[in-house]
């Protein structure tokens, strides 16, 4: 039943709140990036491109960008490879445990991020699960360094992305129909060929969508790199926080945050154009 147009007024209170906690802060962030920092490091209100010039001229910015993109691509691809079989299984199974398994698969998304990072510290740490096994099996003499470096961050990030990937894949599997694989079988295609010729092409949109979503999440992840990186992993996200909270260089923090946002938008646009051409 469609209501009259005046029902739109019902959205007013929520809209007003969002204007204050979302629209205004975002505009303010943009404004901040045009201020300057004085010689003492204090902020000077201004309308200048000084901060932007400084940011773009700094080779460290490029290094951070490269680090973030590579790490995010690795973690997202890892999450995709791991999540795909599980999502396909969940999509296909008629087991009565399906609901439970799906819930288990996405519950980590709701579990506090710090708790999960702590779990990885216990698994990957010098005296953690993996090293205990390796040492007792005599495969290594010294504990292998798996946390407080890129490896640890990549593993933790991969795991934290998986629930999102599973959800995105399952949502995108809509066109996958079991009957289509049966049809392929009746036409003489063995299992592997059925996967390559029917299942995979039909799930390609879901793969693209899931990868995109998770890449964006990975680019802006902060807690996992911060705690599993042990201060040795430098990314756009960690640097934004450092600038804002530790250095209190707000104009620079704002500029770097906007730079990251623009990077993501460019990336999404390029990917979108690519996907359209492929389709």
């Amino acid at each position, binding site marked *: 039943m469609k209501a009259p147009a005046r029902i739109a007024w019902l959205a007013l209170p929520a809209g007003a709140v969002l204007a204050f906690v979302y629209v205004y802060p975002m505009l303010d962030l943009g404004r901040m990036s045009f201020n300057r920092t004085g010689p003492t490091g204090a902020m000077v209100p201004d309308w200048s491109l000084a901060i932007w010039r400084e940011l773009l001229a700094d080779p460290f910015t490029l290094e951070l960008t490269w680090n973030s993109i590579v790490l995010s691509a690795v973690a997202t691809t890892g999450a995709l490879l791991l999540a795909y079989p599980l999502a396909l299984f969940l999509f296909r199974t008629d087991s009565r445990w399906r609901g439970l*398994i799906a819930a288990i698969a996405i519950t980590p998304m709701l579990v506090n991020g710090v708790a999960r990072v702590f779990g990885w510290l216990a698994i990957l740490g010098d005296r953690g699960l993996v090293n205990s096994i390796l040492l007792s099996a005599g495969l290594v003499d010294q504990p292998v360094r798996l946390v407080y470096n890129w490896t640890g961050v990549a593993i933790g990030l991969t795991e934290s992305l998986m629930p999102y990937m599973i959800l995105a894949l399952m949502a995108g599997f809509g066109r996958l129909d079991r009957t289509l694989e049966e049809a392929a079988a009746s036409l003489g295609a063995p299992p592997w060929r059925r996967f390559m010729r029917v299942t995979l092409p039909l799930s390609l949109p879901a793969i693209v969508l899931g990868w995109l979503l998770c890449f964006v999440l990975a680019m802006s992840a902060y807690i996992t790199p911060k705690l599993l990186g042990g201060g040795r992993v430098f990314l756009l996200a960690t640097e934004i926080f450092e600038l804002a909270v530790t250095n209190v260089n707000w104009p620079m923090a704002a500029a770097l945050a906007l730079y990251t946002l623009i990077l993501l938008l460019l990336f999404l646009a390029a990917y979108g154009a690519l996907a359209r051409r492929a389709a």
Partner: protein
Amino acid sequence: MNTGAGASRSLAFAAAGVIGLLLAPVVVVVVISFSADSFIVFPPSGWSLRWYERLLSHRPLMAGLQLSATVAAFVAVLSLILGLPAALALARGNFPGREALRAFFLAPLLLPTLVLGLALLLAFQPFGLIATLPGLVLAHLTVTLPFVVRMMATNFATLPDDLEAAAATLGAPPLRVFFRVTLPLAAPGLAASGALAFLLSFDETVISLFVSGPRASTLPVEMVRYVEGRTDPMIAALSTVLVCGTLAVAVAVERMIGLTRAVGR
């Protein structure tokens, strides 16, 4: 499928392995919370409840727990009060600019919380809202309000139209239709989105890191500070408690409307 039996068995094995990987950190945390060791050692060399006892007397964490619960309660209630009418407008309204309004409401969900957190820090500082209860509640609304609007709008849109029409043909005026038909039907979704808004706020870490301060820090912020400084099993004990709470909410939501439907887009 006869021919696919092998393939689907291998698929099931792969799925089980992935589930194991997903659960590993949580399981390890629960196990290690009963450790008697003073460091993270897995498997633990002995068992005790000492980290749970220590946790209860750890002031910053207990204060954070209390603040987080308070913030989350306010956030959940406000999200529902503000979000329900907005969702109704989006789902039932037929006015020009409705799609634009929908995009406006959902946009914050697409923004990285890192950017939002920074923006909130810069915007709230002049108002003296940093490290205050109202500041934290408002900051969390940036995430929970769009979430509740999206979830409830979907919920309203999937309610059978016929029932409302039927109530109208039976002589109920629009407002009565809403209270006697629409709202009762939407109740499970409402409860579920309230519960998830509570959870989202309670677990929100990145935005809280920006808008917390020495005067007021939420639990996740205190946890980050603790893990940065020391690595002993106390955080595992706390995490175990949180996991149990999360599971309770997840089960409740699953019962009410199905978890995948609630958090999926």
